[in-house]
């Protein structure tokens, strides 16, 4: 195995690990800030207890998120020095902005928040958690600015074989960016909603705590929060798809397994994909639906992968420009399928107090506990989709992954680090999950309980 393949595995695995943690950080920091805001506004101690209780879950997740993020930053120089040289002029800037504008804010004020309950006034302490949430948002914004460039390059020129920035504002107002940013943010909101729902459901199901009020309130808030999150994630995702149909047609055609140009195009629900012969062995499809989803009418043409391949060869020279279709096709279907289930569950959770059957029946509570896994499944699939469907490019149309890898790495080097990271970070994620389970199912401490 050569260092390129191993480096790709390493980056994929560590990114997925990192992205296991990031959405919850984004969503839960905001939710904890909302709870504390309610406490400051109403002086209702239950909200303070909620901020503290969910704050614990948040902190465990945050710590693991930070350290897996360091791995990501170092990777660009360690394994992808070809990329760093070619793209550094553009890519380094958002990364530095991420640290300078986002990460400092997040880290410094998180320290103040954790240690400042007694030392800061209520208002300042509340400001600290909001600044943590804002820092996390700023961080996500700049990282996705960098990623959006890789999907849809803007504001650059090629000089002496390197990409150089010509327009910073174009970079920061990349038309791909609002979709990606809001999609990730609402995924974060959904994740936090489902985690708080799940643990609250666990407590309500057990029914033996002194602090039932805390979890009833948490359940209500989290249900609405989760519903807002999953509905937005779907709407934004749909709009993003329409955008990509114009800007990254290869991505759409791979995701939908459209091999030959169709006008109008059918929506393939399920298919047996044969990448070798570039066809679907069997497929179940809805007539004209794909055209409708992409263009809001039943007429539009969707180019097939084979003709996009031919176009790409004319533009970029010989090569294989079709991304791995099977992975992207199924990643998309898992993401959407799980997402739709989440909409249903969040809706039921919101309606629970209003509908007698739901309120009396404990089935919903029971369902919401395993449902905590769903946002993770969906966002991991989403991340795999967006990165796989860009292949063979690392920067769409500008640099291929094979040209980005560091030339001086040996197989032994990367094999060592790949195994080490996979095992160590895997263990770390498992411990994080276990600690979150312990924190989420613990009885609130007496000073946290709503008395």
């Amino acid at each position: 195995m050569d260092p390129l393949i191993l480096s790709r595995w390493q980056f994929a695995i560590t990114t997925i690990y990192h992205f296991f943690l990031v959405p919850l950080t984004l969503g839960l920091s905001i939710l904890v800030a909302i709870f504390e805001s309610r406490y400051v506004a109403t002086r209702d101690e239950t909200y303070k207890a909620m901020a503290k209780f969910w704050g614990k879950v948040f902190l465990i997740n945050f710590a693991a998120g930070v350290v897996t993020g360091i791995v990501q930053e170092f990777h660009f120089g360690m394994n992808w020095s070809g990329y760093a040289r070619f793209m550094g002029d553009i890519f380094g800037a958002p990364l530095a902005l991420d640290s300078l504008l986002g990460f400092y804010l997040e880290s410094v004020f998180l320290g103040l928040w954790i240690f400042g309950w007694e030392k800061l006034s209520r208002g300042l302490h509340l400001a600290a958690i909001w600044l943590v949430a804002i820092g996390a948002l700023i961080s996500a914004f700049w990282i996705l600015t960098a990623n959006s460039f890789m999907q849809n390059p803007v504001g650059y020129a090629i000089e002496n074989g390197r990409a150089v920035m010509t327009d910073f504002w174009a970079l920061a107002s990349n038309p791909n960016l609002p979709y990606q940013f809001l999609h990730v943010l609402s995924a974060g909101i959904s994740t936090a909603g489902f985690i708080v729902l799940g643990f609250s459901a666990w407590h309500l199901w057990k029914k033996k705590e002194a602090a039932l009020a805390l979890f009833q309130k948490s359940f209500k808030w989290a249900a609405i929060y989760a519903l807002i999150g999953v509905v937005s994630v779907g709407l934004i995702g749909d709009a993003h798809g329409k955008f990509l149909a114009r800007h990254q047609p290869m991505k759409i055609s791979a995701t939908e397994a459209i091999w030959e140009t169709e006008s109008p195009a059918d929506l393939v629900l399920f298919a047996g994909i044969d990448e070798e012969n570039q066809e679907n062995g069997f497929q179940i499809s809805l007539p004209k639906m794909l055209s409708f989803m992409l263009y809001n009418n039943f007429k539009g043409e969707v180019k097939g992968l084979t003709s996009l391949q031919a176009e790409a060869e004319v533009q970029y020279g010989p090569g294989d420009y079709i991304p791995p279709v099977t992975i992207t096709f199924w990643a998309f279907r898992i993401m959407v399928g799980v997402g739709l289930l989440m909409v249903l569950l969040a809706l039921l959770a919101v309606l629970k107090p209003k509908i007698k059957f739901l309120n009396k029946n404990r089935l919903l509570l029971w369902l919401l506990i395993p449902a905590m896994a769903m946002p993770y499944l969906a966002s991991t699939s989403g991340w795999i989709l967006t990165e796989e469907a860009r292949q063979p490019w690392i920067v769409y149309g500008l640099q291929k992954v094979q040209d980005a890898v560091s030339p001086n790495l040996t197989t032994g080097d990367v094999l060592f680090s790949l195994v080490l990271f996979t095992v160590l970070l895997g263990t770390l994620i498992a411990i994080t999950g276990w600690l979150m389970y312990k924190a989420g199912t613990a009885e609130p401490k007496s000073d946290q309980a709503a008395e």
Partner: protein
Amino acid sequence: MDLNTVWFILVAILFTGFFFLEGFDYGVGMLMPFLGKEDVERRSIINSIGPVWDGNEVWMITAGAALFASFPHVYATLFSAFYLALILMVVALILRGVGFEFRSKRAGKSWRTLWDWAIFTGSLLPAFLWGVTVANLLRGFAIQQDMNYYGGLIPLLNPYALLGGLVFVALFILHGANFLVLKAPEGIALRARKVALTGWIVATVLTVAFVVWTFLATDILTKSGLNGLIPAVLAALTLLLTGWLVRIGRSGWAFITGALTIVFATIMVFAGLYPRILISTLSPDWSLTIANASSSHYTLKVMTIVAAIFLPIVMAYQAWTYWVFRKRVGTGPEKLVY
């Protein structure tokens, strides 16, 4: 002043901030299992850096990202050259980072001991490896014409570099001990002072040996124009002063002069390198300099504006957190967060 030089200075400032702030964090982490006799003591030691260590670590992350943004070739060459060393450093930082958070989450003795040693290793290894890295920067390494280094890890672990690693460890232990004298509960502070007294002797011997070796084996202190000689002398003087201040019990001043030693030593490194950033031992033409390794003028301009606005803001709010948590950590377990 051209923007390339501005960014060379900004990167130097970020690394100075990193070594100054993480210096005592690493020192505290290394001393924790030895100065803390029992769990409550270890907790109070961790709590002394609890509110600030994460913000301190962002200095390293920002220094790295700023290097990437301003001198992408340096980032590419350095990080791929030190691949295995950096893998170990990242692993260490991971263990340390989650250690602070995870340790307090369960009460079991073996659980806590596990994270004690994770924090210790996670503080020792990065300190040592940064020392090794900096020493290799001073002496240069075999960078080829294509800006890449193909030599692997072993040549980077030469005796000079290993001594550099030890110097970093010793200086950070001294720095961390000085910090604990000020911040830890009285009993631990007394023990920390003893460590500072002996640690100072070790740090001084190692540092003097390293500076002499640097004088003989590199041009860092002797090259014409800007060089590292004056900052090296100032680093030595402040280090001597630190020893004296520890001895007479002026612990606040000792912390400041110890910090200045680290600051001057970092300035020595960057002043001695300028205008080179990574020295090639194969040919002076293959060294990476502020001219041939930098980003475009436009990118540097954008980043200069951003840094000029936000770096002072960051420093201000971070300084404020130190003010909020200026008091000595108490001994009562109920007061401890971690």
